[in-house]
């Protein structure tokens, strides 16, 4: 048990945690964009899967990681447009559309994988890049500054998203259509357009989350590669109170505990593995239960907007 507190173990846990948090960060921050505008997208996992497939397929066939990333973005965008069309234009119940999107993404990614690739293969994806100087700092450099570009991107996304959401005119529109779409509409804000853009940004980020798995962290594709990570990402949005920084804490907590439990298993700490695996889930609930500052969800969340329906 003492091993757990060794410096190298702590460093190992943190390095793992940063890697593990990456897809959650992309997907959850993306979902925050969508939810702040009033649209719950439960289809994140489906988008991640199909984008993960697309980027993997492109990298496998072209060898270009950038084209692969582009493919993930394009496919994410297309899925976002589909979700937005159903839930914003057609004003459908968002919960079902999301689950429909998930099923579609799950099925289609696996179908395409089977018909176009057929068997598990690996590619050379985004490689770890050591940041000059910073990467050479002992321990700290290893933990923070020797990751792949998509990992850095996920963490840079936090301030970027914060800036866009809090400091730009578009961020204001995004918030207002999620809080009071009628008010935004009465000022000439095109509610549907803002929601389209928000959902699509969310979907693109979910797409990048998928790519971060298939062409950066795992460098392979397989059926149901995400194994439900998209749903955890949605939960993290609630944990983070719809704020990028809150989501960052949530994702870090979840993945740090996950890394911790893996280390405990590796070090042979005597608790049943199943209990260890439960830990991140348990602690995430507990953490939210004991923090007092609870944010209200966007007032118009899950409510399609139609003019005159006050």
């Amino acid at each position, binding site marked *: 048990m003492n091993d757990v507190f060794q410096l190298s173990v702590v460093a190992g846990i943190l390095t793992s945690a940063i890697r593990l948090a990456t897809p959650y960060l992309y997907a959850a921050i993306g979902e925050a964009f969508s939810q702040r505008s009033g649209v719950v997208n439960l289809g994140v996992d489906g988008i991640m899967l199909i984008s993960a497939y697309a980027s993997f397929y492109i990298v496998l066939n072209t060898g270009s990681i950038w084209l692969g990333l582009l493919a993930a973005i394009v496919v994410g965008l297309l899925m976002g447009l589909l979700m937005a069309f159903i839930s914003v234009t057609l004003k459908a119940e968002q919960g079902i559309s999301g689950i429909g999107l998930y099923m579609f993404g799950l099925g289609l990614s696996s179908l395409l994988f089977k018909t176009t690739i057929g068997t598990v293969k690996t590619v050379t994806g985004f490689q770890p890049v050591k940041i000059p100087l910073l990467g050479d700092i002992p321990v700290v450099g290893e933990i923070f500054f020797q990751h792949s570009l998509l990992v850095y991107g996920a963490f840079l996304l936090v301030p970027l998203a914060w800036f866009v959401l809090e*400091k*730009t*005119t*578009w*961020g*204001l*529109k995004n*918030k*207002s259509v999620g*809080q*009071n779409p*009628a*008010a*935004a*509409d*009465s*000022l*000439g*804000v*095109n509610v549907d357009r803002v929601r389209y853009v928000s959902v699509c940004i969310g979907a693109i980020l979910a797409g990048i989350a998928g790519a971060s798995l298939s062409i950066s962290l795992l460098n392979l594709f397989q059926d149901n590669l995400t194994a439900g990570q998209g749903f955890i990402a949605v939960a993290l949005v609630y944990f983070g109170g719809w704020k990028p920084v809150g989501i960052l804490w949530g994702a870090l907590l979840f993945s740090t505990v996950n890394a911790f439990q893996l280390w405990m298993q590796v070090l042979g700490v005597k608790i049943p593995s199943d209990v260890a695996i439960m830990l991140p889930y348990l602690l995430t609930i507990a953490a939210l239960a004991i923090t007092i500052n609870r944010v*209200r969800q966007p*007032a118009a969340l899950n409510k399609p907007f139609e*003019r*005159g329906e*006050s």
Partner: protein
Amino acid sequence: MAHGVPTNEKQQIQRVEMCNITKCFPGVLANDRVCFDVNQGEVHALLGENGAGKSTLMRQLYGLYRPDEGEILINGRPYTFNSPADAIEVGIGMIHQHFMLVPTMTVAENVALGLKSSREPMLDLDKVSARIRELSQLYGSIIDPSAYVWQLSVGEQQRVEIIKALYRGASLIILDEPTAVLTPQEVNDLFVTLKRMVKDGHTLIFISHKLHEVMAISNRVTVLRDGCLIGTRLTSEVTRNELVKMMVGRDVRQLNPQPLKSGPVRLEIQGLQAMGDRGTEALRGINLQIHGGEIVGLAGVSGNGQRELAECLAGVRKTNHGTILMDSVDISFMPLKQRIDSGLAYIPEERMRDGAVREFSVQENVFLHDHASPKYTHGIFLDFARMRVFASELVKNFNVKTPGLDTPIKNLSGGNIQKLIMARELSRQPKVLIAAQPTRGVDIGATEYIHQRLLQQREEGIAIFLISEDLDEICVLSDRIAVLYEGRIMGIVERNEATVEQIGLMMAGISMTEAMQR
């Protein structure tokens, strides 16, 4: 985009005409070939009962709805508004009946919403704030641009709405029932602002149920009834009674309640203290007694603790200190349910939010409190037959206009929802009735009806606590009037003891003795 909008300079609106406007909603013809016009520098009032189609007509002018038929001409040229953006573009602004503000955003953010920033794509709230200060000073007192909207009083929120329109350079401003939620002082302030705006060349369309306001501010009046145009008159050439007849189709009686011998004390409040939503002390020791057969009116500018007081009495807000006695029983720590069961009735101020379940049917709303009463249940099962009998009786007795008992209440007009809530509370034969803003936004006919009902209950020996920001209403109905200022009762006067002006002074924080001397 609007057709024919000049590309560069915003043109001045000289004349707006709406011709033969027809607008249909599922189940209602809200506007039926209505014609309406307004000229620059004019204040044109729009009158009509609840559901007459006033808001609908104006929402079409603002681009929120598109007319099914008819034309909108501005300076003689036809325009099609696809969205408010188009209307804003030509210089039309609208202050909505239910404010269109985002409570979780600041004043500056609310004003800046949808506008191009000087530092696009980044917000430049400093610049916006400066202009807000400028505008608010020009048309009244300064509003803090960095305050959150939820922190503002209703009157301040309305000023934000006006600033929003002015900021966008509106030359024609539609005000949909702007005074419904204001105190007399605030109404006066608003009128000063409005007159100033007219002087500056703005054109106003003014909707209200209050005839004296219409008489005081408008040049012309248009009356709608049931979606149809009844007529347009010059204000100077029309009398109050004529307008009432045009609106309601009959005369409305003036109430003149006679003094009653009041009974024993039914509600007693001793040293009540409580916190407000914003964490400040809202009530600082309230003492008050209300007798059976008496109406006590609570006058005061909104935000001085009326809502908190009502909620403390009803049991939905925690009190810090003090006792509440109903028929000499201490109910201070009774849960809400028990208070209701032991004879307290409450008509909440936000009736759509707190008083009714919009998606529930009329009948279901009738039983919001009493659904578990043995009268309407067998064990845990509801007895629909008996509920139905009771509900239809209630609807009939209180003259609630509804297509049926199974109609969702959201499809009723505001006045009728109000009547139904009233009916529900009164039918429970309460000992004490707390009525908060019972006629806010309700048309003349319904107001008359509700007032009659309150007086009738008074005669039956119920203690009524009437909380209203409509001073006229308070002065007509109350036997005694208490004035609330900053969480304290400034004084209690008999109905005929004080003038409206004196009460107004007390509402502004002048002590009773001082006010009575003026």
